[in-house]
C-alpha cells in the first residue's frame, strides 16, 4: 500500500434495490460480503462479489450458490458494480424507445427493450406524438419519477385518462417516442418541481411529477400559469400588500410526490392537467419552488423530532435517504453532490434468479479501494 491510496469500508442492509455508497473518492476496486447469504447458504445466493475498474462499469465477478448448494463462480455483466461522480446536473442516459403509453391514471409506459430503471429514477419523454394532432405531447419534457412494474414497464405520476390525451402506440404512431433517464436529478435540494395535480380546500394538497424533497416547515412559492387553473396560489400579485410575495408553508408530506400547504384554496379555480395536445408548443408548466424555511430557531417542529436532522432526499415512497452532509437546519438548501460506487441489482449470467445486491434485509459488508500504483 502506497502513501496516497484510499481505502474505505462499511455496511448496509440491502433493500433488494441498487445501493448507492457515497465516498470521498471514486474507487478502482470494490468487494463485498453478503453476510446473510454467507451464513445461510441457499440456491441463488451471492455471498461475495468483486469488481475492478479494468473490468468495466456495471460488471462484477461473483461467488454463487448453486442448487446443491455449493459455491461456484459466475459474473454479472449488467447492473453489477459501477462508480459515479455526481457533480454536475443535466446528464442523461441513452435514449430508449417507447412502445406504448396507456391512457390511465397513473399512465403505464412500456419500453421496447428492458429499461433497466428502478423505482425512484427520473425520466423525460420526447415525441409522444400519435398523429399530427393527437398523442401525449402535453407531458413531453416533464421530469417524472417512475415506479417500476416490470422489466419493460413502469408507471408515471400523471393522469392521462383525460379527454385531451390519446394513448401512444409506436406501431401506429407517426413519431417514435423516446425517454431518457435523468442521471443525477437531486444534486441540490430542495429544488423546483413540476405540479401534476392540486386538490383545493381548507388546506391545499399539491402533487408533483418527481420527488419534491420538501419537508414540513418548508416555505414554498407556487407558480401556476393561468392555463393550468389554480393561479390564485401564485405568490404574486398580492392584492393586499403591493409587491409582497405570498408564500406558503408545507404542513404535511404524505409521500414523495405530494405535499400539503397551509393555504385555504376553497373556491380557487380547479387545476387543469387535461391540457390540449395542440397547445403544447411553448407551454410553461406549473411549478413549486423552495423559498426558505419556517423560523424554527432550533425549536422542534413536532414531538420527538430532531432539532437539526441530517438533510435527506426522498427518491420515492416515504423512504428517506440521508446525504453526505452533516446535520442541517430543517429545510435548508443543501448541496448533495457526491461520488462513490453503486452495487446494482443485476443477476449472474448463469442464474437469472440471483441478485447481486441480495434480498431485502441482507446485511452487506463492503470495502472500496483507490490504488496509487496500477500494474500493466
Amino acid at each position: 500500500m502506497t502513501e496516497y491510496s484510499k481505502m474505505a469500508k462499511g455496511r448496509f442492509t440491502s433493500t433488494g434495490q441498487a445501493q448507492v455508497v457515497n465516498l470521498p473518492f471514486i474507487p478502482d476496486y470494490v468487494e463485498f460480503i453478503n453476510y446473510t447469504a454467507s451464513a445461510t447458504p441457499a440456491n441463488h445466493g451471492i455471498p461475495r462479489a468483486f469488481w475492478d475498474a479494468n473490468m468495466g462499469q456495471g460488471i462484477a465477478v461473483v461467488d454463487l450458490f448453486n442448487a446443491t448448494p455449493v459455491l461456484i463462480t459466475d459474473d454479472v455483466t449488467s447492473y453489477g458494480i459501477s462508480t459515479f461522480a455526481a457533480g454536475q446536473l443535466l446528464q442523461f442516459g441513452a435514449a430508449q424507445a417507447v412502445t406504448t403509453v396507456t391512457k390511465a391514471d397513473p399512465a403505464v409506459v412500456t419500453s421496447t427493450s428492458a429499461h433497466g430503471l428502478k423505482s425512484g429514477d427520473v425520466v423525460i419523454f420526447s415525441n409522444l406524438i400519435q398523429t399530427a394532432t393527437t398523442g401525449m405531447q402535453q407531458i413531453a419534457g416533464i421530469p417524472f419519477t417512475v415506479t417500476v412494474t416490470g422489466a419493460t414497464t413502469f408507471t408515471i405520476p400523471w393522469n392521462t385518462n383525460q379527454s385531451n390525451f390519446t394513448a401512444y402506440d409506436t406501431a401506429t404512431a407517426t413519431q417514435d417516442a423516446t425517454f431518457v433517464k435523468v442521471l443525477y436529478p437531486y444534486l441540490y435540494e430542495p429544488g423546483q418541481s413540476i405540479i401534476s395535480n392540486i386538490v383545493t380546500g381548507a388546506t391545499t394538497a399539491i402533487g408533483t411529477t418527481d420527488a419534491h424533497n420538501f419537508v414540513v416547515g418548508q416555505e414554498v412559492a407556487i407558480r401556476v400559469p393561468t392555463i393550468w387553473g389554480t393561479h390564485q396560489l401564485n405568490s404574486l400579485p398580492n392584492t393586499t400588500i403591493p409587491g409582497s410575495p405570498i408564500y406558503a408553508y408545507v404542513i404535511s408530506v404524505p409521500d414523495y410526490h405530494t405535499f400539503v400547504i397551509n393555504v385555504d384554496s376553497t373556491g380557487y379555480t380547479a387545476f387543469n392537467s387535461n391540457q390540449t395536445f395542440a397547445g403544447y408548443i411553448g407551454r410553461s408548466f406549473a411549478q413549486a419552488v423552495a423559498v426558505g424555511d419556517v423560523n424554527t430557531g432550533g425549536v422542534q417542529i413536532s414531538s420527538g423530532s430532531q432539532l437539526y436532522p441530517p438533510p435527506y432526499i426522498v427518491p420515492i415512497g416515504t423512504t428517506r435517504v440521508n446525504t453526505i452532509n452533516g446535520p442541517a437546519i430543517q429545510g435548508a438548501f443543501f448541496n448533495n453532490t457526491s461520488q462513490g460506487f453503486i452495487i446494482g441489482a443485476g443477476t449472474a449470467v448463469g442464474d437469472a434468479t440471483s441478485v447481486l445486491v441480495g434480498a431485502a434485509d441482507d446485511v452487506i459488508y463492503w470495502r472500496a479501494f483507490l490504488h496509487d500504483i496500477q500494474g500493466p
Partner: protein
Amino acid sequence: MSITTTGNLGPMILQSLAPAMLYVPTPTMNYILVTDKVSMPANGGTTCRFMRPRALVPPTIQLGNSGIDPPAQVPQRDIIDAQMAFFGTGCIINEQVILQDQEGVLAWVSERLAVAMRQAEDLILRDYIVSAASQINAGGGANGDNPTNLAVSDFSLVATTLDTNNAYKFMSGIEGMDRFGTGPVRSAYFMLSSTELQTDFDGLTGSGFLSQWNYPTNATALPAEYGSVFNIRILCSSEAPVARGVSANGNDVYYNTVVGKQAITHINQDGYSMNLIYRDPYYSGMLAQNATIAVKFAQAQAITQDTAIRNLLATRLSSVPGP
C-alpha cells in the same frame, strides 16, 4: 570542398522550449458575476441564515372619528438558509519532476488549480440555479417545439415578469450617441446564456437584438457580453447549462438564466474562499519525495429573491454549431 551542413553536423540538442506557454481554452465564468457576496464569520456555525422582512399592509382605510385605534399588525419575516460546503483538489508532484523540469511545473500547476477552483465555484452556482429557480418556457419562437426557440417576445415577457415582481436591474441604460450604427441600451437585467445560441441572437438583429458592438459605448460592457434585447443584456458562456435532447420534440433545451440584483447570494466563511496550499516534499514520507499543491474553498449559495430570477428555457432555431 566539403560543406558542413546540418546533415552531418546537426544541433546536439534538438528541442528548446518556446518562451510562452500555449493558452488553455477557458470558458467565461458568468454565474459568479451576478451574485451578491456575503461572508460568514469564523465560528459562525454551518449555515448562513438570511432574513427578509415582509412588507406591512399599507393603512389605506381612514381612521374616522371614533377615536379607536386600528388593530396592530404583526411583523413577519422570511428565513432563507444556506449550508456551507467544502471543496478541494490537488496534485502530488514527485521532487524529481520539480528538480528536472524546464518549464516551472509548480507555477503552471498552481495556475491551473486556481482556475479549476474558480470554475468549480461557477459550476456549483450554475447547477444550483438550474435546480432551484423557476422556469418559463419560451413560446414566441416558430420552431414548433416546447420550449420554442427564443423570440424577442420571450425576452420582453421575462423582463416584464421581473419588473412586475419589482426586481432590481443590474445595469443602468446607455444613452444614445451620434455614432453611426449604434443605438441606446435600456437599463437591464442580465441573461446568462449559451454561446450556442449566438446564431439565434444574431437572427434577431433588426427586431430587437442589439449587438454589444453596436452599443453607443463599450465602456460598461462585460467581456462575455454578446448584446442586448430590450431590458436584458446577454452574457454568453460555452458552459451555460444545456439539457441535451429533452425538449418535447427531442431537441436540446438551453437554460437562459435571467436575473436581477440580489437574486442569488454567494457565501464564503471567514475568507476561506481560495486557499492555495503548497507542502514541500519535506512533509511527505521518510524520504521526503513528494510535494503537494492543492486548492480548497468553502462556499454556500442561495436564491435570496426568488421573484427576481427565472430560467428562460429555449430550444434553438439555427443549426447545431460545428464541432
